[in-house]
């Protein structure tokens, strides 16, 4: 489903963020990408939704090279990939309802579908009562759950989570991980970049370890080893 083929990314300053990585991820997998800060985890994920282009090599999504997609195809692909970030990245001037509705609107959903889907997904992440609040009125954990709700509302094939628990306390971290496991059980491929040892060890799924831009370990039922 996802294939990185000898991918290298060199930023303008000459810094090698990702170096010669070849990696395949099958549909329905739950994959942790672990490594210290600056290991290249974020760059690797950003290349999947084309926020960063590789300097050499290719990234394939559903057997199509992302670099060769047209603008329209790229937008469609992004609507098929949910994204969650450490800093939540919600739209600050929109209510929680509007934040989630926005993802549905850009995917071309009707007003009736939006009215039905948004309350449903908010119920799934336990935030039905916050529908008309603004992001600034929510705690960090709640904002992250909204971000997850927005990422999954279009029922994407893949969910990318880049340090989603980085700003959360242990209880909220546990909640977020449980939601991600639930989403994976429903068939969505989950890629989770983290350096939180305890969640990697507790879930017991595939672990890809990166160090200084290189892939140094890929364990099917791995632990956090660095």
């Amino acid at each position, binding site marked *: 489903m996802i294939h990185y083929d000898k991918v290298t990314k060199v930023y303008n300053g000459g810094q090698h963020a990702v170096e010669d990585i070849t990696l395949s991820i099958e549909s329905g997998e739950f994959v942790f990408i672990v490594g210290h800060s600056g290991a290249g985890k974020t760059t690797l994920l950003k290349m999947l*939704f084309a*926020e960063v282009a590789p300097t050499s090599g290719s990234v394939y999504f559903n057997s199509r090279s992302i670099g060769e997609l047209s603008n329209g195809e790229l937008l469609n692909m992004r609507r098929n990939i949910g994204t969650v970030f450490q800093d939540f*990245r919600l739209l*600050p001037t929109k209510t929680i309802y509007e934040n989630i509705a*926005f993802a549905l*609107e*850009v995917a071309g959903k*009707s007003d009736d579908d939006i009215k039905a889907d948004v309350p449903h997904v908010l119920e799934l992440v336990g935030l039905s009562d916050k529908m008309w609040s603004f992001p600034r009125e929510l705690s960090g954990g709640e904002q992250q759950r909204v971000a997850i709700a*927005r990422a999954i509302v279009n029922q994407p094939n893949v969910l990318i989570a880049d340090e989603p628990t980085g700003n959360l306390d242990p209880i909220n971290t546990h909640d977020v991980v449980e939601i991600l496991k639930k989403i994976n059980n429903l068939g969505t491929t989950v890629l989770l970049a983290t350096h939180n040892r305890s969640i990697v060890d507790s879930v017991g799924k595939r672990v890809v370890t990166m160090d200084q831009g290189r892939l140094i370990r890929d364990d099917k039922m791995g632990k956090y080893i660095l």
Partner: protein
Amino acid sequence: MSLWINTKRVARYGFIGFIRNGFVSLAAVSIMTLTLLVLAGLMVFGAALDTTLAQLTQKVDVNVYFTTNAAEAEITDAKRMLDALPEVASVSYVSRDDALAQFRERHKNDQLTIQALDELKDNPLGAMLQVRAKNTSQYEAIAKFLETQQSSETSVGSAIDKVNFYQNKTAIDRLTNIIDTSKRLGTIVAVVMGLASLLIAFNTIRLAIYTSRDEIGVMNIVGASKWYVRGPFMIAGVLYGVVSGLIVLLLLYPITLYVGPPLQRFLGTFNAFSYYAASFPSIFLVIMGSGIALGALSSYLAVRRYLRN
């Protein structure tokens, strides 16, 4: 998805953004109001300049005096020839009797002159043509034409007694200079002030959108098309323009009412308030059109900077 639903959603987010980003909207509207006020000021200034210059130009003419024995046909011929010149705006004929009547009217309080005139049996004044050029710089060419006629000893030429251009030449030249300089200076001032105001307004909107750059990034990531991202910002830009335009149109009423009379005393016939009232439709179109275009274009360009594929 239908274009109508898309447009409706974009417009709604534009309105919502305008209201919810209240402080940013206030800043943008304030700056755009000042910009449009400068534009309105330039329009009033331009109209005042045009009216005053036109009025001065109206006061200049060249008179062709005919001899007292010039035949009516010769004068009519001269008038026809002058009318045919491209530089000539109008030629008005003052007959000997009219010239006498005008002379009497002008000197009605000067008993001595009137008595002297009464002593004469014949009307001592010749007929006259008052020639008005389209442009003050063209009087010289008209005078040269008349001079050529005079020296060519045609019947028309010999009927001409005097052309008063050379007596007025210095005054006409000076006025031509003043008019040219005023127009050039007026254009330069208008262009410089207009550009400065536009740049300030454009940068304010850019700054307003700079605060939303992360938001634009998120919209890109969730798969929003460029127009879906850009649309609400452009709608908000149009709203900045509409609100500022309305404020300016409202402000112009008391401003022109207040400055109208003193300005009229200074300039002669131009009244700013009468101009505002009479030209309201064109002022409305220019101010609102500029506001909307400036807001939409600035937003379009500012968002483009943060849009990615």
